[in-house]
């Protein structure tokens, strides 16, 4: 791997070297290297691009890294990753895609991820999207995520897109059985003329399933964001949807949280707020000796932390 690859790897997965444990590294539309462990098996798909990640039941304290890097202009990468998490397993999954596009053609990566999470299994999934490069070519990421949670399972997802992605359309769906718990935290910053859209449908199918969806975003310059999370309660369940955005410059943010109850015992709440940085916040930080830009930076990075 060269320096650009390593930089991207660090930006999306905090990795300074090839990770220990199970991993699959994909570069420019092809598998680069891969490692399975006793409990976590990574198998390339035969019918289409992508991998199956199979975590054995009762696996504890292990992690899987599946970073994707694109450094060539004009790559259009579509990949299917299926996760099979055995009952009672507890794993950390670190995904993410970094694009360095210094050419004039677009570079695109669409990751189709499906999670089958077994009974009482617990996963934490962290995904960072990042783009760089000074070419005119667009950097596009369109992830599709499907989550199927069996009884008593816990899925915590952290999805972050902080910089450099020109266009992203995110489509997520989750299906929760009894006692399953889903926590999704989405953090997004768009600038320039970027476009980001996130559609999310969470179906709470079983008794006492619960979901918490938190979306925090900052839209700068002329960028445009659309959020449309929908929590659908089909049984006695709890869900909380929260969308909170800071709007700046000439940006445009549309927040459309939806909640649907098909059971009288479903308790579902949504909150949404869009607002600019408040002047008192800026002044307060300026009384510490920061200038306006520094104050803005502190407010934004705190908000997206």
């Amino acid at each position, binding site marked *: 791997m060269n320096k650009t690859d390593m930089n991207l790897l660090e930006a999306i997965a905090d990795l300074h070297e090839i990770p220990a444990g199970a991993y699959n590294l994909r570069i420019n539309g092809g598998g680069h290297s891969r490692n399975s462990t006793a409990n976590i098996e990574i198998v390339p798909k035969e019918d289409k691009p992508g991998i199956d990640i199979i975590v054995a039941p009762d696996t504890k304290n292990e992690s899987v890294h599946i970073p994707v890097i694109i450094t060539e202009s004009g790559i259009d990468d579509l990949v299917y990753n299926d996760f099979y998490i055995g009952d009672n397993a507890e794993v950390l999954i670190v995904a993410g895609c970094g694009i360095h596009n210094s050419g004039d053609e677009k570079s695109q990566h669409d990751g189709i991820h499906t999670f089958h999470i077994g009974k009482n299994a617990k996963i934490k999934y962290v995904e960072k999207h990042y783009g760089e490069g000074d070419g005119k070519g667009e950097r596009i990421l369109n992830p599709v995520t499907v989550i199927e949670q069996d009884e008593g399972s816990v899925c915590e997802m952290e999805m972050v897109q902080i910089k450099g992605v020109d266009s992203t359309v995110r489509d997520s769906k989750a299906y929760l059985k009894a006692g399953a718990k889903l926590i999704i935290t989405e953090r997004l910053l768009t600038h320039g003329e970027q476009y980001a859209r996130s559609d999310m449908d969470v179906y709470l199918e079983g008794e006492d399933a619960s979901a918490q969806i938190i979306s925090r975003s900052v839209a700068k310059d002329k960028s445009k964001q659309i959020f449309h999370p929908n929590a659908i309660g089909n049984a006695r369940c709890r869900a909380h949807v929260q969308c909170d955005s800071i709007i700046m410059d000439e940006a445009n943010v549309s927040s459309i949280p939806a909640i649907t109850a098909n059971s009288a015992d479903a308790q579902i709440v949504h909150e949404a707020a869009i607002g600019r940085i408040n002047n008192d916040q800026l002044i307060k930080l300026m009384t510490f000796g920061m200038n306006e830009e520094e104050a803005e930076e502190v407010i934004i990075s705190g908000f*997206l932390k």
Partner: protein
Amino acid sequence: MLKLENISFSVDVDGKGLGIIDNISLEIPDGAFTVITGPNGGGKSTLARLIMGIEKPTAGRILYNGTDITDMSVTERAKLGIGFAFQHPPRFKGLTVRRLLSLAAGYELPEDECCSYLTSVGLCSKDYLNREMDNSLSGGEAKRIEIATLMARKLGVAIFDEPEAGIDLWSFSMLVESFKAMSSGNHNSVIVISHQERIMQLADTMIVIADGKVRTMGSKDEVFPALMGEFSENCGFRGKEAGGNE
């Protein structure tokens, strides 16, 4: 030394100028604890905001240690050593109390130092260090953290705008102690806008502002007894609720 020369400030209301501060001149001596008091709507908070640079005067000059700071920004004045604790502190989503105190100090504060500032404003520090400065804090909690942000700095002039507003009686005693310590501590001079007798008792200098003008100014021994006499004659100040944003 902070010096205000013929400071006036007015705002535009329906095309007409409404005077808030009317030709005020005063000096805040170094090393002094100055309490500014007076009726609500008299211009106290505006005066403090003019000193910090949040508002710019429509006439007059402000001098700090001989330098004309009238046209300086909030940032520049902060760098010169002027600090301000808001009457209604703003909230920050995602910013922890510890981070805010560190930003105030200008460097990453060690945990024990953060704790000592929080303790001195009556907050159990361990519970608060990693709390976010958002709307989950009560008004009194946010207010005490605001005061702590000035404690974390070494200032030439530290200005507190009604620090007692929204603080319960139990914490208030502690706050008075903290201000007592502050008068001989970190900051060169301390200016407190207050309606509280116990804070006035700490004053070296007292300034009474009413109708945008200095009504009285002098040492505590000169001003305080007269003020108390005024209270008993006409219940003008005491009966009014503290906390207006002048």
